[in-house]
């Protein structure tokens, strides 16, 4: 049971971070379908930091790993920004490209450094047993992960930012009615860039959080198994509102956690369902949820439409 709660919380943390990233990007008017790829690259940044940083100071480790993930995520998301904000590319197409590119680039890169270190090593794995311990505080068998705290903070910060600050007001104006924002002197391109970069930072954080959730070794060929997409479902279920996103993430996290821990529950184990069924659950649930909620969806009105200063 404790294990279930632990997994639920950590997977929810991943989903919250990434979904908030998507939420901010969409509030600025850009659909970020590339979150999956951004997570991979963020995870790569964090994993590299863990591999090469020889510190035994847990604080420095946690801080620098998060920072690396954020920086990698932001840099990678700027590819989305350039294409979709400045060159008005199809956001779905570019997002898809980033997802494919993320996994391919991370694999090529990790294999290259593994091969460089040891000519016989052609794997795409990075191992971080020692570093991972620094992220975890063991409280009576419950593994508290610092990312759980980060996720809670992120929810509060994003909510305050969207609803209480000048920046939030302007950001949302760009996603709802960019012409109106422009007419009062708000630079739509700048705000959308801000939205995309923040989503890159949060996506990157979510990525490193995901690979630290349950294992101490990551094979980059596998990507992040659709978590970026799940986060998008969480975002829609949460109706683009931070607190509702947090609740949605808890629900989805629970389903994901069940697939890791169902063996531990006699009642579930007795059902003798294949493990794949639990893997499928979050996707099926989100599909059903979307079917019932999409009619009344309150998505930002201008999302997905490239802003062109000329057409007003």
């Amino acid at each position, binding site marked *: 049971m404790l294990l279930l709660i632990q997994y639920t919380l950590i997977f929810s943390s991943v989903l919250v971070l990434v979904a908030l990233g998507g939420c901010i990007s969409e509030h600025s008017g850009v659909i970020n379908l590339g979150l999956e790829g951004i997570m991979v690259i963020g995870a790569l940044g964090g994993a590299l930091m863990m591999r090469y940083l020889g510190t035994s100071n847990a604080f420095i480790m946690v801080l620098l790993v998060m920072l690396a993930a954020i920086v990698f995520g932001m840099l990678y998301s700027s590819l989305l920004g350039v294409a979709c904000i400045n060159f008005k590319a199809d956001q779905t197409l*570019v997002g*898809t490209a980033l997802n494919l*590119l993320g*996994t391919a680039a991370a*694999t090529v890169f990790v294999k290259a450094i593994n091969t460089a270190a040891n*000519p016989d090593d052609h794997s795409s794995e990075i191992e971080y047993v020692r570093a991972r311990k620094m992220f975890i505080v063991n409280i009576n068998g419950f593994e508290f992960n610092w990312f759980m705290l980060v996720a809670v903070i992120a929810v509060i910060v994003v909510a305050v930012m969207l609803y209480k600050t000048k920046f939030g007001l302007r950001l949302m104006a760009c996603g709802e009615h960019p012409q109106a924002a422009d007419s009062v002197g708000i630079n739509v391109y700048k705000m959308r860039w801000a939205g995309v970069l923040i989503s890159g930072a949060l996506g990157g954080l979510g990525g490193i959080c995901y690979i630290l959730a349950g294992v101490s070794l990551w094979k980059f060929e596998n990507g992040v198994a659709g978590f970026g997409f799940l986060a998008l479902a969480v975002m829609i279920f949460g109706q683009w509102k931070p607190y509702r996103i947090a609740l949605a993430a808890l629900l989805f996290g629970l389903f994901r956690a069940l697939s890791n821990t169902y063996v531990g529950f006699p009642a579930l184990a007795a059902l003798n369902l294949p493990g794949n*069924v639990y*893997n*499928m659950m979050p996707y099926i649930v989100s599909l059903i949820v979307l079917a019932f909620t999409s009619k009344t969806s309150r998505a930002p009105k201008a999302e997905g439409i490239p802003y062109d200063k000329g057409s007003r």
Partner: protein
Amino acid sequence: MKKVLKNPGVQAFVASIICIILGLLIGYIVLLFINPEGAAESIINVIKNFLTWNRANKKLQQFGNTLAKTMPLLMCSLSILFAYKVGLFNIGAAGQYVAGSCACLYAALAWGWGWLPCMIFALAAGAVLGAIVGFLKSRCNVNEVISGIMLNWISLYLANTILTKVKETASPYTMYIKDVNPSALLPNAGLDKFFNNNQYITIAVPLALIIAIAVYILLSKTKLGYELKATGSNKNAAKYAGMAENRNIILTLIISGALAGLGASMLYLTGYMRWECTQSSVPGMGFNGIAAAFLGGLNPIGAIFSSFFIQHITDGGQYVNTNFYSSQISDLISSVIIYLCGFVLFIKLTMNKMIARSEEKKARAIKSAASQGGDK
């Protein structure tokens, strides 16, 4: 020259070539960074693919392999471009492909069906998945991209579960069709003779090409194509003109799904590949289909060539120097190409602007020459 450049078809072609060159260049730069020594040779090998072999026979044989794998890719790209013309982004083609794979393999291995029923079953499986996306879109307003992605993962885990029943005991792979039920293998119809007896060259090759042409005709010459494209371009106008908008959306995604599902059978029923029942990511065929569709300028005939090219460099990945590099470099190149396809609109606009500017210059020159003439 300028007149040629104004033609939208030519513009699409030029834009695609620019994307390809830039994609390869970026791939080369990545290789240079990893290890400058073998980079040039490796990138050339990626481009040469089967031409890397010296013996003509081997070349033909490998050419056949690439060709065999091009067909499912072509089907996926047709699936995507067909939906895209109707204003739908069928990212779910990947899952429809998985559903097709699962259907034809299970029918072949567990039920012992012949190749034709297996193929139709795969087509139907893809169509059903497409219908779900279409239904959710038209009845519940669920974005087809999101539902498509969800169904991709659902169908992956479902396929893993179902195909586990027909897998080899010792490995995670499904059994060989040729051992269990050779009647499910697609007939070669003598085509293999042209490719040094490459057994994977089957009727799938001409069939896929015919379907590409059929899709072209359907979209550009028929009443149905007129209606579907109108729905895609302006669904309000389509509704105003009395077209059944919801039916068109569902119909489009059924056709789109059927194409992807059929595509899967064109690979798995040749016996070229087997399903790995423990795979944890959705096969890339559906996603590469996006690359091929856009690289081909969203034209079914263009898709034939772009699909071959994408498959060509994907296969070329195995010829890199694996002492330094990994074969995923081709995945990297093709994803860079998809990314660059996002800029195609911009490239075309720039071309048009350049043409307009030079024309205006010319017009002005003529005008001023004329007025000067008048002054004298």
